């Protein structure tokens, strides 16, 4: 460690912002600009990980940025959950940066400078969300995240992008200002503070009824958690270039949502308080419904990114479910899910983007036989899928395992059934993609880049036409990470353990 | 009193704007008479000069430019009527607990005012209490008032000196100048009438003398800078009406007027600043001279002069702007490339 923990916390915010400035300054020379992005992301990742040992030892560095409202400042405070989230986001940013370069260049996207700047700002906001020390700070960075990703979502600047952008912004800003903010202020008037305190701050200040209403405001106010029926923004956001969908809409933005949910449940309401009041009962069922319904919708989608988006909605519901069951096992499962799903889903998006870059296909039905042409991509896709489904030896299995344990702990037999059904549905909507890729013959149509006459041939090196290296390498890396994480689950659980035991 | 109401109703119903203006003048004049009966001689003086005098001239000047017939349409507006009745009802409701009219023990007469009545002759040394309150106790209000006039002068100049961009309509709009009944006043003078010429020649000097009297005698009788300014301006306006605007301009040109408007305000403010420099507060005349009363005298004199200058100049500026407007238009239309150089 070069600096004090506090400085490192601050640096996590400053590095990406400096990176954004650097990108702006070097906009005329793409190579240098991309180098700046990469260097920034590596620096950020190193910086975040340099915090890790301290946090593991139980330190809680805090920084006060400014006082917006008397007694409530913009305050940063690192705790295990945030640490986990920040670590995931920052490490994935490196991989994603590599991928972005490949993708953006491969597709000759315009306005790349703006893209990288917004990206860096969004990452800074994500760090802010992860390290926020109170609700207000969380809210502030949450909004910054929304606004900085808006230009990314509408990057294509066509009618679709406009429409998607409207839905995206409308729902996210609408719910956050309309529900989240009042909930924060209400909490403040009730408890006199909005700091994240272990064990919650509302206990003793709010009746069961008020708690129920507040929980409702929070859960639907945090639109990024994509609980049904306010999930529409996520599919809408898929008009964005794939790197955006990959990092932001599989990791940073949506995870900021569920992360906020966890934070609120753990530090504002308190797990015990929620259990005793039973206010979270309804949330469990909403989450369960979202979980199943989104999976079913995913089945019907032919567009690969749309299917992945619904899959994300469904997977996010796991986290909310974990939070709502309000048992320590379930919450641990939720936290693990944030990590595991991040790696799994980003792999899938990377693959989707790689396919698009290589052959410009977006519909699943057009991807028959592509596995023979792009074997690496499809194998990575397979691994990611399996992780999300929750099969060992992949990381995803742990989160499902803990969630099951949590459901068992809470004696919720029906929930266990829900989880089981959902896993089956996961299989149903993810694996056919891979199966089509490998086992179906490619389409023999003229727009198919595979020349006629080769379609019946088996795998051969000559058929391989992968996307550019920068597009293929990242999914491979993240797929490997899914495997590695299976063995790293223990340290992660140990990291977040302190927050579960009061 | 009832005459007022009758007059007001007539104003409302008459369709010819020229008549309405005249009626408004009559209402103002009646009001002035009532003010005299209410002991407010200064106000009456002003109201007569302004309400019945200057503003009537302004209205007529406007009508000359815009035509004097209201569109034939008798409409009854229930909405506004309801609003008016509501406002009236509130006031009527309020009158019931108002202090009785004219009673010496009303709050207005027992608080604050006695000081003016009892002490002003000794503190200020000016018999006319209105003047002493106006120029000294509430001198700052009067400064504000002067500024208001200044503002109006500036505003009218700003608005009416603007040249229009659409030049094609100019020629079609000339006729109204002579349509209205006040057409003859539009700056060209009644060149062929000997009687008015002689009479006004005789009158104008007297008006000026009277104005000066009012100006400097304001300490003792009704009057003061404001009234004097209005009268002074009236004299010049009369001159302009009879001999034509160009003659009047020869006497007092517009550049001088602008200068005078500013000078009046500056004189007033200057007195204040000087009093500040001499260690008093703003507009504290006591410090102007070793003897406070003499200081007050001096201060009031200067201040009234400032008011007089500004008012005269502003009134003239407004008058010129109105009456000179048609010329400006013609000028613009013929000489669009060099918009009125000589007038700046």
């Amino acid at each position, binding site marked *: 460690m070069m600096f004090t923990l506090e400085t490192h916390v601050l640096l996590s915010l400053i590095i990406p912002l400096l990176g954004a400035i650097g990108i702006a300054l070097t906009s005329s020379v793409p190579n240098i600009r991309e180098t700046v992005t990469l260097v920034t992301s590596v620096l950020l990742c190193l910086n975040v990980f340099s915090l890790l040992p301290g946090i593991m030892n139980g330190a809680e560095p805090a920084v006060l940025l400014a006082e917006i409202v008397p007694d409530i400042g913009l305050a940063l405070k690192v705790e295990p959950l945030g640490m986990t989230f920040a670590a995931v986001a920052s490490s994935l940013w490196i991989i994603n940066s590599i991928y972005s370069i490949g993708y953006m260049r491969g597709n000759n996207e315009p306005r790349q400078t703006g893209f990288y700047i917004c990206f860096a700002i969004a990452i800074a906001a994500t760090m802010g969300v992860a390290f926020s020390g109170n609700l207000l700070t969380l809210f502030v960075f949450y909004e910054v995240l929304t606004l900085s990703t808006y230009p990314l979502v509408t990057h294509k600047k066509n009618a679709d992008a406009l429409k998607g952008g409207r839905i995206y912004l409308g729902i996210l800003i609408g719910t956050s200002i309309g529900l989240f903010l009042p909930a924060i202020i209400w909490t403040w008037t009730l408890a006199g503070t909005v700091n994240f305190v272990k064990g919650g701050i509302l206990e003793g200040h709010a009746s069961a009824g008020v708690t129920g209403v507040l929980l409702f405001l929070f859960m639907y106010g945090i639109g990024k958690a994509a609980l049904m029926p306010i999930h529409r923004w996520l599919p809408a956001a898929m008009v964005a270039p794939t790197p955006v969908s990959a990092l932001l809409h599989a990791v940073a933005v949506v995870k900021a949502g569920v992360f906020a949910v966890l934070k609120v449940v753990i530090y504002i309401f308190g797990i015990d308080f929620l259990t005793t009041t039973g206010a979270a009962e309804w949330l469990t069922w909403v989450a369960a419904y979202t979980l199943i319904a989104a999976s079913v919708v995913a089945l019907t989608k032919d567009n690969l990114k749309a299917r992945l988006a619904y899959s994300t909605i469904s997977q996010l519901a796991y986290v909310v479910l974990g939070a709502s069951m309000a048992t320590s096992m379930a919450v641990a499962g939720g936290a693990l899910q944030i990590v595991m799903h991040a790696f799994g889903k980003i792999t899938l998006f990377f693959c989707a983007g790689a396919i698009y870059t290589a052959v410009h296909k977006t519909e699943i039905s057009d991807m028959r036989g592509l596995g023979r042409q792009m074997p690496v991509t499809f194998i990575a896709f397979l691994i990611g899928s399996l992780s999300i489904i929750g099969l060992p030896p992949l990381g995803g299995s742990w989160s499902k395992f803990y969630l099951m344990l949590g459901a068992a702990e809470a004696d919720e037999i029906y929930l266990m059934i829900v989880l089981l059904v959902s896993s089956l549905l996961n299989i149903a909507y993810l694996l056919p993609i891979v199966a089509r890729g490998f086992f179906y013959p490619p389409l023999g149509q003229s727009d198919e880049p595979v020349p006629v006459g080769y379609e019946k041939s088996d795998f051969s090196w000559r058929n391989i036409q992968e996307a550019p290296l920068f597009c293929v390498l990242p999914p491979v890396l993240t797929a490997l990470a899914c495997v590695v994480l299976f063995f790293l689950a223990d340290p992660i659980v140990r990291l977040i353990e302190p927050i579960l035991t009061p | 009193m009832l005459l007022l109401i009758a007059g007001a109703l007539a*104003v409302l119903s008459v369709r010819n704007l020229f008549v309405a203006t005249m009626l408004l003048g009559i209402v103002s004049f009646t009001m002035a008479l009532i003010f005299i009966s209410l002991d*407010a001689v200064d106000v009456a003086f002003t*109201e007569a000069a302004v309400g019945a005098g200057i503003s009537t001239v302004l209205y007529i000047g406007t009508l000359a430019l815009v035509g004097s017939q209201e569109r034939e349409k008798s409409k009854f507006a229930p909405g506004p009527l309801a609003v008016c009745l509501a406002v009236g009802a509130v006031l009527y409701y309020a009158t019931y607990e108002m202090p009785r009219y004219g009673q010496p023990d009303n709050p207005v007469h027992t608080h604050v005012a006695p000081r003016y009545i009892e002490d002003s002759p000794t503190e200020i040394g000016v018999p006319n209490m209105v003047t002493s309150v106006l120029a000294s106790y509430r001198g700052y209000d009067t400064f504000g008032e002067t500024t208001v006039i200044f503002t109006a002068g500036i505003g009218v100049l700003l608005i009416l000196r603007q040249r229009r961009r659409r030049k094609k309509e100019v020629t079609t709009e000339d006729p109204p100048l002579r349509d209205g009944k006040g057409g003859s006043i539009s700056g060209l003078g009644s060149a062929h009438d000997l009687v008015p010429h002689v009479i006004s020649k005789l009158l104008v000097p007297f008006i000026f003398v009277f104005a000066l009297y009012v100006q400097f005698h304001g300490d003792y009788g009704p009057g003061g800078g404001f009234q004097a300014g209005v009268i002074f301006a009236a004299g010049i306006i009369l001159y302009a009406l009879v001999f034509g605007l160009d003659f009047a301009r020869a006497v007092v040109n517009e550049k001088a007027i602008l200068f005078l408007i500013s000078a009046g305000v500056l004189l007033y403010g200057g007195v204040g600043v000087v009093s500040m420099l001499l260690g008093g507060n703003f507009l504290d005349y006591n410090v102007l001279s070793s003897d406070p009363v003499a200081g007050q005298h001096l201060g009031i004199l200067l201040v009234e002069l400032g008011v007089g200058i500004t008012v005269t100049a502003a009134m003239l500026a407004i008058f010129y702007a109105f009456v000179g407007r048609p010329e400006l238009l013609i000028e613009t239309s013929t000489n669009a490339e060099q918009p009125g150089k000589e007038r700046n």
Partner: protein
Amino acid sequence: MSFGFFNYWIFIILLMIGLYTVMSRSNLVKKMIGLSLFQISVFLFYISMGKIDGGTAPIVVETGADGMAPVYSNPLPHVLILTAIVVGIATTALGLSLVVRIRETFGTIDEDEILEMEDKD
């Protein structure tokens, strides 16, 4: 005096007439006239409250023949109204100059007609 609140009532009626003229007439000059009327009525209100029965104008005079000190009416409202009159004439002047310009640019001084023209702009 016998007429108690009479002055105030006159004030109210004048005010109502003025206000009604402002609001109901579409001719801009008529509106200005109404506005003047409205302002004049306020003057009456102020001056009325300054009056004292049997009072005289607030200018120092020699003690009366009966040896009584003269009763002066309250000079303060007079001062205020002097200012208000000035404000009134200033407003009138500005308003009328606007009317003149409106007439020049729109060719009419009827509000309804102007509104129609504006909609086309």
